[in-house]
């Protein structure tokens, strides 16, 4: 039988649906808004919703990282970018003609439908196989044992990203 709305399962389902709604609304705003800064706020809402989903799934650490990195750093960098670039308010994003909208809707829903059908029909690993409790301790343990290679490699990737942005920014604004 279905759990009632006020039972623990019902309430937790309500929270889940709320988080999904926040994520989807944020994504829609991010793609549909005409002003860049409004797109950004939509994006932030979307990130927050995803962070909530992580928390809901029992990974508080990942949720924190999501907030810290995506909302706290990436969204702020985009905001800086928008302010520095001074987007031309007169040139707001124009709506494309009706046909391309319809076609992209058809293509997008076909992909979403295919992925959803495959996902619903698949035999996923049973949720009982819980790898760990998602705490910082477990994340740290696996980063230094099973995923030690990745842990070391990520530092090289970050080095490349930092050096690259420095090298490009140094000469990127030469006007002579």
């Amino acid at each position: 039988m279905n759990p009632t709305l006020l039972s623990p399962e019902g309430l937790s389902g309500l929270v889940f649906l709320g988080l999904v709604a926040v994520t989807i609304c944020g994504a829609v705003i991010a793609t549909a808004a005409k002003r860049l800064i409004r797109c950004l706020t939509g994006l932030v809402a979307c990130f927050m919703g995803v962070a909530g989903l992580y928390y809901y799934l029992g990974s508080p650490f990942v949720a924190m990282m999501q907030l810290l990195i995506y909302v706290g750093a990436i969204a702020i960098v985009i905001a800086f970018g928008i302010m520095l670039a001074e987007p031309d308010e007169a040139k707001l994003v124009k709506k494309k003609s009706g046909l391309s909208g319809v076609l992209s809707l058809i293509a997008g829903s076909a992909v979403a439908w295919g992925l959803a059908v495959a996902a619903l029909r698949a035999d996923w690993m049973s949720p009982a196989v819980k790898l760990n409790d998602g705490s910082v301790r477990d994340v740290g343990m696996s980063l230094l044992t099973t995923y030690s290679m990745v842990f070391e490699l990520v530092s090289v990737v970050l080095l490349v990203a930092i050096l690259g942005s420095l090298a490009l920014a140094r000469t990127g604004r030469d006007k002579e």
Partner: protein
Amino acid sequence: MLFAPELVLLLGSLLLFFLSLGESDGKGARNVTILLGLAGFVLSIITLFQEGSLFMGAYRIDLFSQLFKVLIAVGMTCVVIFDGEMKGISARMRPEYYLFLTLSCMGLMLLVSSVELITMFVALELSSYSLYLMVPMRDDTGGIRFQMEAAIKYILFGIIATGAMLYGMSYLFGLTGSTHLEVVVPKIIELSASSPAAILGIALFMFGFFYKLAVFPFHFWVPDVYEGAANSTTAFIASVPKLGAVAILIRLVVMVGPTGGDALVNLLIVLALCSMFYGNLSALVQTDVKRMLGFSGISHAGYVLLGLLTLKDSGFATSIYYIAGYLVMNLACFLVICKVSKNGENVSIDDLSGLHQRAPLLALTLGVGMFALAGIPPFVGFMGKFMLLTGAYKAGHLTLVILAALNTAIAIYYYLSVVRIAFCNDPDERPSVSVDPMTKLVSVFLMVVIIAMGVAPAKVLELATTAVRSIL
């Protein structure tokens, strides 16, 4: 010792980093990079027949991975040598340019050895980020900044492909509960006959590497990036990362097992045909040599898929043989482009007029490279295409073989018209081209390899087959 080739490149990139801190014209960095390439080559050869597992099973050394590392090191060394005067690379960024080139090669070497999904992803990103950064480092001579446009397109398409790849990985992880290939592969082979999610996961995972290999419909970046990046950068992007892509595609195709996966085979057939037709027909009308080679690269990606879709170890071995051949043929053509271009500008097909008088060795290299790409005996391109087509025929794909053969005929036209212009047109006022001794050595080496692999393919093929069997 097992980790030696990667370790040398890692330490070398540290050295390059220190070189990039001071004032430098890049000559020192270039010499260091050549030495690193040679050291990587020698160490990969030494470790060729060794086996081992490192980093908690996330990293495997076997013949398969070491074979690809040898090829990557060859590609890296050749590109750095024939770009002798560093034409077209912004003067202030040369040491950094070589740093990123080395790190990109290291990323690819790590990629071909990774047997764990997240390690694969991070290694791929290491190599991709470095490539993204090399594109905008072109000298901005015309002031139109179209290298920036190329770089942005490259990054954006790359991100989309990466997103699809991660989504596919999440399916594989969800179905198997592990990220280690040794656990994932047997479970997915079991599931792939019944579960559409498994096939979908593999297909989405492949998208990331189709993008690297420039398979239709992940080719949109190719013409603009080839045109916008400096000649030597394009030479690198066009040849070396494709090795890594083929290595991982083979590891992924294995997952559907020898019999299951009709859906995946059909997908590969469609993509192979689209790539061949699109690439060849678009290449017919190009006037810029780099753009033409870009479109031809799309069609060659289609040919490589012919070997994968047989789902047999002989087919995978032919794919390795073909991509190794493609590396040397492509490098031979780009060597000529880099040398003919005087200040690093793009080369149109007309600029090659009368090359046989201006630089006989380059004209010969161009001839051998183009003939090989067109698939004319006795060069490696012919043997590769021949074996791919017979392999696909034996696997029962008759229509596909006929259409692919048709494409070979289309391709001959545009490759040979380049050769015709180089040998039959008058040079008019165009100056002669000087070639330094190191480059001469490389061009002779490339020609010898192209002909040797075409005349005596058995040894290489045998090695590739043993390598493929070692991962099955």
